[in-house]
């Protein structure tokens, strides 16, 4: 019994039409993006810094960075952002990211689709991600020599800043902080940490299940694998030598062999590895394993302070040295607020910001400043920062710094590990 008068149909028909149109209407106001080209943008590269600041005023800067560390997040949100707002009227929006590679891929897709106005203004990247970005022309620059703080406080010739995992940064990314690979252990269980690979192997054999490393492509895990390679090469110098003479393969094979021999004595007998260093940290904190590792030399200090690691945690580096790298800030080619990004990055390179970031209770990230450019007062402030027995003093770390392999080499190493060790 369905009444179907003419009126009824008409009413429903109109209703229907409206409803079809409504979703389309909702779509409209947001499709006008792609029209604006960069031709309308002022040439920031040849502007005076004062003009850049003026342009940046009122802009919103979206900074994409890893979101899993409260210290880092708070530093940006509570120290950096208010200063940018008060001093320069710039709104800094921190975007928490799980894996920056996703963002690189996004910008890559945007470039393919010719999207001129992107969403990211600053990317926190380095290494392979940087190389990928450069190869595909995803970054804007060169811009670092335009930043006053760069010119004043950072050594332009420092090789470990200029080269990002073997790739010439060419001014497209600004060094922000330094990292160095360190080993962390529980001194309650281990009296003498194994300072060499041979010693580590012995230890693992005698204490099965107490050691593991994150599986590549986790960055820290990948570094451990490279440390193994480094020891087999002998030193960084010897590595370059072997490369030139194309004699590397045998040494590599030895390394895979070693890692495979290590397997049965690892956590879970090497049948699985923690997927990330964060998970390894959890295992260490829970006492399942007695070692962890990290690219942040102050990590042990931070974690003990936060009550996550036991008080008996200590840090050490291998006798043959550990890899040290820099992390950077870059600006995508299609950033909407390039001027704002420049001002923000400049602030992050300032002495105040670098020292603040270095403070262990804030973040504990290494500084990129040239110490010869600092004033006496600034040096004094630095000296007052306490590092505790949990981490190593800067001098010791500096002595053991080894430059990183190139990102291609690292990518190859990670793939080879998967084939030679991971899958077996």
């Amino acid at each position, binding site marked *: *019994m*369905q*009444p179907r008068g003419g009126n009824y149909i008409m009413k429903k028909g109109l*209703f*229907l039409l409206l*409803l079809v149109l*409504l*979703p389309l209407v*909702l*779509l409209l106001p*947001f*499709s*006008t*993006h*792609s029209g604006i080209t960069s031709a309308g943008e002022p040439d920031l590269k040849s502007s005076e810094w004062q003009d850049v600041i003026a342009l940046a005023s009122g802009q919103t800067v*979206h900074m*994409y960075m*890893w*979101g*899993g*560390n*409260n210290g880092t*997040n*708070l530093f940006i*949100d*509570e120290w950096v952002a208010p200063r940018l707002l008060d001093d320069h009227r710039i709104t800094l929006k*921190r*975007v*928490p*990211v*799980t894996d920056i590679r*996703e*963002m690189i891929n*996004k910008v890559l*897709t*945007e470039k393919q*689709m010719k*999207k001129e106005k992107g*969403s*990211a203004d600053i990317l926190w990247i380095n290494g392979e991600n940087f190389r990928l970005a450069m190869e595909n022309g995803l970054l804007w620059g060169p811009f670092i020599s335009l930043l006053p703080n760069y010119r004043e406080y950072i050594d332009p010739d420092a090789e470990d800043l200029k080269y990002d995992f073997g790739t010439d940064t060419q001014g497209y990314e600004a060094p922000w902080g330094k990292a160095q690979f360190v080993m962390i252990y529980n001194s309650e269980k281990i009296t003498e940490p194994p300072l060499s690979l041979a010693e580590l192997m012995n230890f693992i054999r005698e204490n099965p299940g107490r050691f593991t490393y994150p599986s590549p492509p986790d960055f820290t895990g990948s570094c451990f694998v490279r440390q193994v390679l480094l020891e087999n090469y002998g030193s960084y110098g010897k590595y370059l030598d072997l490369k030139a003479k194309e004699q590397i393969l045998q040494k590599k094979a030895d390394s895979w062999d070693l890692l495979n021999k290590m397997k049965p004595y690892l956590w879970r007998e090497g049948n699985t590895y923690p*997927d*990330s*260093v*964060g*998970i390894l*940290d*959890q295992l260490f*904190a*829970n*006492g*399942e394993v007695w070692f962890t590792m990290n690219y942040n030399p102050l990590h042990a200090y931070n974690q003990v302070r*936060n*009550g*996550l*690691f*036991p008080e008996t945690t200590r840090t050490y580096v291998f006798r043959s040295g550990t890899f040290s790298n820099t992390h950077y800030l870059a600006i995508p080619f299609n950033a909407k607020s390039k001027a704002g990004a420049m001002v923000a990055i400049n602030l992050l390179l300032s002495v105040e910001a670098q020292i603040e970031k270095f403070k262990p209770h804030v973040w504990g990230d290494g500084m990129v400043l040239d110490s010869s450019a600092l004033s006496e007062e600034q040096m004094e402030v630095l000296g007052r920062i306490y590092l505790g027995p949990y981490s190593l003093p800067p001098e010791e770390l500096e002595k053991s710094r080894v430059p990183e392999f190139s990102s291609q080499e690292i990518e190859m190493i990670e793939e080879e590990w998967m084939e030679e060790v991971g899958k077996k």
Partner: protein
Amino acid sequence: MDRPVENLVLGLFYMILMFSLLPIFFLILLSFSGGWPWPEIFPSDLDPRAWKYVLGISSGTWTSVWISLKVAFFTVVIDLILAIPAGNALGRSGFPLKGLIETILMLPVLVPPIVVLMGLHRTFIRLGITETFTGVVLAHVIPTLPYMIRAVTIGFEKLGFQWEEQARVLGAGWFRRLQHITLPFLLPGIMAGSALTILISMSQYVITLLIGGGQVITLTMRMFPYVNGGDQSTGATYAVLFSLVALLLLILMDLSLNRLYREKRL
């Protein structure tokens, strides 16, 4: 099967229910823990620092809660706009190919959203709706619409035509019919569909990440880096907060539905 065995079964059932609660309890404890080494069952070091961080203004949590709710709300609105006429037709009329259309509309339930959205991503880029609120809402409509349609259809099925007809015959105008007859029948379905939609929308991560591109930062976006290797206490805190928000919403909807029914006695 006799009584004691039955009691055993029930006992087991109650135990399972209790165990369902355990992880929640554990999560709450974790969110308040400073350090929690083995083999402690309860964390000896209670420290609200994770909560302080999450609830503090700087962490951006509240903004994300607001955004998650906004996205969910608009998803519900669009779902309703699409589902009500559809449910009307599916629930009350017969028409050719009805079965086929029903099946087509239900299909998104079966296919993982990520599969669809990888294909849709480029189109969204071309339309310029990636990284916009609108884009994310549209992306959320895809997995939620079938549920809304289903819920609303059931409402219309129950409604049929006869009640409205009778009321019309008795002289009630269309507004009164709407108020006293149509809505009371439809409301439970609308509420159920909306509740499910909100739950699904708020739970999305990969879609919001892909389409939102980091510009639409929902609560799950904030939570995920912590869950994936970040600080555990903070991760637990976000998880608890998320659950509270979801629970609150559902209770609110339930309450308002009950109140509506008490006032409009059927």
